[in-house]
């Protein structure tokens, strides 16, 4: 083990020399171009923060593009593809521009470009009213967010007197002002990122979109919200104490609510959408730790937190893309997205089932795959915070550790439910599944690539972890070389050797098993029915019944509805039962809010028939308001 460590250290030194020469990750490439937009300039910059996001965008956009070629074949005869392809490329461009933009106007332009093109991509199946509604909701929510962002950026630019991020970051902000900027950023970017409770567009839009678009949405588009927050953190630099606590608590709430809602779903893509909220929560946990470290002047802690969060951004893009693509294959084969009707797909589509398993294990943060690495780093940061922060900070970190552990356990419950009900057991609907949906090779190849990346980062995390730590150090304005990074890389390397140990053991045990079974017949029979025969696949546990214990336990938080299912009398009549989990923030916050707004605008609208002048009066009043405001 010592040798391993020494070898690792020397490799690391080599790499650090590379950094110092500025050839590796830390190249600060920038690019400028005159642009005839007021205050605008076409300024691009690639730094270690955007590098992580750019990597995620590139990988996922490429993979999803290839996947789409296979996936969209089913629509070839019914729909024209031109518009879809156009907006796909527009979205890719916008995503790249967002992470590279070095100017407020360029950033906001790219941001809008992303929102609009995403809208058109979501409403691909616009003959369904649910899809149209989901797209509309997305459009409204994302514009509300953009409004706040414009406000925030202009406040910031006004304070600094420039529209260039680089220059803004050099100016100093009063502490209270910085706090309010961050609040605006958290709400504005949080809408895109899917922070609870402003996440409500997310579980509608993801299932409505075609699969490769869901993958991009969940993998990178919502990460743009995280990127925005990171960029704002980088620009502001020094933040008041409470920001770290706020983001950490947001992470805890998002993570737990996301995974609990996911457990209650029985629609495959909706479940994955809620899991995105959970992972955004994990990322925010990391960011919160980083901020706590920054405000308590502990650069190592902040690099751990930020680095873990950034690595998780990349990891989540990879495994969530993989999972969505797997879900797309399943849905294409079964023509339904209701998990309660699926089952036994591992036998008809073995390769997809294995790739989905890889994604599921990765998202649960289990060793061998990439999710574990980033969660390990975040855990490590939280434990460092527990040991070294003062009382409140230590307590918050303990809460973070506990909720991260709980999220892990709940995600495990959720993905065993998904994997078990979709791929294992017997098909739950009795008629044979229609086998028309052929899975083309073009859909498998990108999944293989993503699955391979999961395994690669899981087993050889040094390169990506280094890149993430570079990003983290850049974000917290510290120098990585001055930090004891061995404290995290040494355990990381040992974790990996532990995983290899596990792997070797599995191989050995397989060998022993084969040896023991040699010469024995291995009869294949029915599943033991505890003395009963002729069991139908209907009596299997469905995804809803599997999750019922947990959902019932937390029904105080979730909005759990259960209808029917009463059995009355000695010879009960045929009955049916349905249960569903609804989003509390949608039911209790947004529906009443929208209802209020609608009734209010109806009231305004009432007079329209008789008086056009009323509208003129509104305009007049508004003008007066503006005048008075300016007078002051």
């Amino acid at each position: 083990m010592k040798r391993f460590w020494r070898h690792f250290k020397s490799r690391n030194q080599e790499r650090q020399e590379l950094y110092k020469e500025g050839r590796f990750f830390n190249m600060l490439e920038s690019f400028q171009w005159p642009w005839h937009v007021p205050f605008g300039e076409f300024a691009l910059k690639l730094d270690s923060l955007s590098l992580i996001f750019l990597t995620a965008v590139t990988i996922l956009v490429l993979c999803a593009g290839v996947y789409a070629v296979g996936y969209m074949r089913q629509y070839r005869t019914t729909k024209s593809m031109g518009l879809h392809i156009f907006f796909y490329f527009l979205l890719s461009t916008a995503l790249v521009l967002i992470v590279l933009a070095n100017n407020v106007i360029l950033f906001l332009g790219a941001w809008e470009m992303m929102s609009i093109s995403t809208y058109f991509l979501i409403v691909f199946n616009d003959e369904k009213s649910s899809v149209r509604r989901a797209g509309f909701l997305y459009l409204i929510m994302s514009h509300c967010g953009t409004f706040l962002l414009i406000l925030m950026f202009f406040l910031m630019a006004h304070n600094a007197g420039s529209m260039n991020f680089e220059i803004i970051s050099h100016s100093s902000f009063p502490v209270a002002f910085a706090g309010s900027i961050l609040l605006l950023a958290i709400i504005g970017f949080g809408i895109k990122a899917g922070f609870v409770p402003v996440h409500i567009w997310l579980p509608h839009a993801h299932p409505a979109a075609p699969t490769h678009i869901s993958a991009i949405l969940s993998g990178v588009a919502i990460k743009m919200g995280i990127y925005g927050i990171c960029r704002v953190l980088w620009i502001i630099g020094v933040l008041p104490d409470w920001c770290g606590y706020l983001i950490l608590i947001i992470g805890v709430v998002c993570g737990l609510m996301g995974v609990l809602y996911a457990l209650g779903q029985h629609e495959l893509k909706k479940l994955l959408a809620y899991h995105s909220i959970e992972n955004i929560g994990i990322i925010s946990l990391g960011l919160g730790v980083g901020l706590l470290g920054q405000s308590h002047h502990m650069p190592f802690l902040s690099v751990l937190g930020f680095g873990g969060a950034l690595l998780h951004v990349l990891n989540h893009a990879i495994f969530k893309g993989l999972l969505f693509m797997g879900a797309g294959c399943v849905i294409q084969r079964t023509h339904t997205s209701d998990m309660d009707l699926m089952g036994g797909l591992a036998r008809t589509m073995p390769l997809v089932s294995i790739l989905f398993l890889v994604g599921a294990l990765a998202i649960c943060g289990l060793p061998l795959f990439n999710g574990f690495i980033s969660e390990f780093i975040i855990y490590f940061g939280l434990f460092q915070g527990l040991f070294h922060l003062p009382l409140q900070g230590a307590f918050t970190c303990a809460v973070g550790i506990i909720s991260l552990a709980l999220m892990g356990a709940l995600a495990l419950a959720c993905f065993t439910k998904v994997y078990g009900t979709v791929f294992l057991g017997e098909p739950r609907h009795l008629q044979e599944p229609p086998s028309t949906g052929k899975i083309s090779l073009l859909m498998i190849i990108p999944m293989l690539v993503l699955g391979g990346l999961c395994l690669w980062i899981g087993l050889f995390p040094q390169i990506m972890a280094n890149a993430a730590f570079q990003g983290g150090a850049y974000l917290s304005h510290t120098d990585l070389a001055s930090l004891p990074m061995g404290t995290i890389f040494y355990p990381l390397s040992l974790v990996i050797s532990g995983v290899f140990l596990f792997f070797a053991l599995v191989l050995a045990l397989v060998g022993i098993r084969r040896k023991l079974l040699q010469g024995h017949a291995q009869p294949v029979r029915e599943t033991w029915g505890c003395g009963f025969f002729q069991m139908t696949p209907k009596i299997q546990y469905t995804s809803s019944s599997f999750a019922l214990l947990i959902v019932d336990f937390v029904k105080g938080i979730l909005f759990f509805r259960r209808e029917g299912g009463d059995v009355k009398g000695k010879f009960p009549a045929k009955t049916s039962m349905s249960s569903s989990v609804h989003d509390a923030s949608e039911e209790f916050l947004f529906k009443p809010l929208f209802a209020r707004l609608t009734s209010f605008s109806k009231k305004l609208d009432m007079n329209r028939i008789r008086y056009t002048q009323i509208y003129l009066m509104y305009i007049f009043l508004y003008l007066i308001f503006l005048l008075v405001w300016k007078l002051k």
Partner: protein
Amino acid sequence: MNIIFLILSHWLIVLTLSPLFLGIISKVKAFFAGKKGPSFFQPYFDLQRLFQKNSVYSRTTTWIFCAAPIINLAAVLVLSALVPLGTFKAPVKFSGDILLAAYILGFARFFMISAALDTGSSFEGMGASREAFFSCLSELALFMNFITLSFVSHSISLSAMIGANFPLSWTLMGPVLLLVVGSFFIVILTENARIPIDDPDTHLELTMIHEVMILDHSGVDLGYMLYAAAIKFFVFASIMVPIIVPVQSGNTAWDMLIFLGGMLVLSVTVGIIESTMARLRLNRVNNLLLIAFALAFFGFVVKMWRM
């Protein structure tokens, strides 16, 4: 090479000793029932018998079903390499190994639950569902214990957190350790499917968690499962014993004797609990686990308050 030798010798101890303690538990239970009971070495005989048999598979199952026992056994063996056994130091120890320990168990659990769902039987689905639920709560309690212990010892390594490595023993941190021990004991009972959370002996499908999940496994597969269960109990007990008796006399033989004595007492305690208590109603189990969590949390608060 040295490290490989250390790991292998560690596993040798674990593999040879672990079934014995299950034998002790069933002996104690037999004693309380007024019976003679099977020999102490009955678990060894059971394993030997199972390893000689062939396995029967269901038509429904896939490779997951065969993989689960292997992964389960491998996971607990990796876990055992992280835990010191009396005077034998843990061969693998580093800061953060508790996370590897917890998540490698999670890996095994993923496959156990999947394998149960793989059979397509409603009974095993029931067990899987319960396992998924209760493991969430026991993970909560387990992590709270880890947090408290690591906060006390300022380390996130299992070896440093427990036992003789403990810089502060009972005289300094008595109340905290008392709470942690209570909480961890409940976690042990849960993770190892013991009364009052689960009943390892009955085969009443409606009341069980762990046993019902491995209903369809047979032969070598079942042997692997049983072996993994024995090792898991052994490993959890050997985490707990050094917390209760953090003795470091310096004399290897004495220390080992104390460790084994502690393990013996713990197994007998589990046996006594199994023979005197009834299994809890299923919807009370979560309260018990939450109490385990609250205990550890209380310990954490006390420690933090004293800081």
